[in-house]
């Protein structure tokens, strides 16, 4: 890794100014960025650490949960506000990475990183979240623009995200057998008016996306069986040692059905599946 100058400013204004410099990048928990720098994907000349200066409060406001960008995954997963109003999101966050990563990684970092198999981006798109930055409020549907990319401009810092609450929402992911990220994950949510939201993560090279064909199939009723035979287009599907495009497309349909079934059942939540896991594997 190339060396860089590390700054830990004491205010958002100072952080914004430092981050405007050529070659600067913002650093939060570092659980994606530091790894990517080791892999040579980024070589910033300066890192601006926003730990401690972005908000980290978690509040319930106007039928939505507002999470400060500095909240760690561990804080979000055990937040009484989340557990009361949006438990599916607490459960999703409780399965990001591993416990040590969750002690350090933050909401703001995860949104800005927009990893291909990110769990948070899937939740943002399916729940219709709004991302708050030092400059504006952006709908999640406009915030993410491809793997590792967002609409954030130089010097713009994510300060929070608001997630409208949803009672009929579930997330199911099938883990990569080695690294345990979502080989395919599906977040299914049904709005109060019956509008279906089906978001797939991990499957495509450009990150999480709304699966419109699946949503269309569900407009007449939020019932898992309506997804049978709905196939994901092979366009942009990720292919690697563990899964080719056809396998990922098949997984997407199977997992979407599980997610819709879980979301419409008596105990919506999160299900984590892996090779060899039993069908009844169900985690809060």
């Amino acid at each position, binding site marked *: *890794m*190339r*060396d*860089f*100058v*590390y700054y*830990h400013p004491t205010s958002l204004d100072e952080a914004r100014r430092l981050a405007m410099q050529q070659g600067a990048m913002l*650093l939060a928990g*570092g*659980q994606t960025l*530091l*790894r990517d*720098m*080791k*892999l040579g994907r980024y070589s910033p000349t300066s*890192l601006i*650490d926003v*730990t401690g200066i972005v908000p980290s409060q978690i509040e319930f406001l106007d039928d939505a949960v507002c999470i400060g960008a500095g909240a760690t995954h*561990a804080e979000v997963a055990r937040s009484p506000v989340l557990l009361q109003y949006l438990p599916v999101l607490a459960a999703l966050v409780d399965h990001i*990475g*591993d*416990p*040590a*990563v969750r*002690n*350090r990684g933050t909401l703001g970092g995860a949104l800005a990183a927009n990893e291909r198999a990110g769990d948070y981006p899937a939740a943002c798109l399916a729940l219709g979240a709004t991302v708050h930055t030092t400059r504006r409020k952006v709908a999640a549907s406009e915030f993410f623009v491809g793997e590792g990319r967002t609409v954030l401009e130089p010097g713009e810092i994510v300060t929070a995200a608001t997630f409208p609450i949803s009672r009929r929402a579930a997330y199911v992911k099938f883990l990569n057998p080695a*690294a*345990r990220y979502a080989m395919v994950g599906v977040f299914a949510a049904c709005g109060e008016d019956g509008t279906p939201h089906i978001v797939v993560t991990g499957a495509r090279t450009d990150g999480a996306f709304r699966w419109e064909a699946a949503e269309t199939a569900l407009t007449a009723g939020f019932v898992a069986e309506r997804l049978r035979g709905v196939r994901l287009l092979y366009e942009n599907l990720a292919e690697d040692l563990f899964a080719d495009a056809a396998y990922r497309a098949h997984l997407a349909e199977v997992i979407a059905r599980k997610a819709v079934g879980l979301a419409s059942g008596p105990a919506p939540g999160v299900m984590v599946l892996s090779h060899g896991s039993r069908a009844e594997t169900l*985690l809060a």
Partner: protein
Amino acid sequence: MPAVSMTVNGRVVRGEVEGRTMLVDFLREQLGLTGTHVGCDTTQCGACVVHVNGLAMKSCTMLALQGEGAEVTTIEGLAPPGTPLHPMQAAFREHHALQCGYCTSGMVMMALDIVRRCREPDEATIREQLKGNICRCTGYHNIVKAIAAGAAAMAAQHR
């Protein structure tokens, strides 16, 4: 080079590091605390787990400069020389929870984080919580037994 200061195993330490120096390298190379290991160096294996302000973190994926002012505990801090092993370390010895030993310090530090959050976890919880700690000897069976026993021993100490 920038200066950094933190408390490691109860002792205030200072050093000069590069921006890119990871916490694990500061601990091992400047402080000589080589009980913390580097395995994968990509946040997956957990051999580098230490406690920062009481929380388990992967020290290969944290800058030394991010530890400014922090309280850090490494495996060496659990039982200073001449004192009995920590109950979790004793449980690892009792249950033969190590083969080559490379992952052990990270396993023990993660085990304590699991106990902090889950008190006396069952087997399924321990296995789920060890997602970020890899034993390439694949000796998980005894590691899981040791963590359950260590958690029980710690709970008994507090009763």
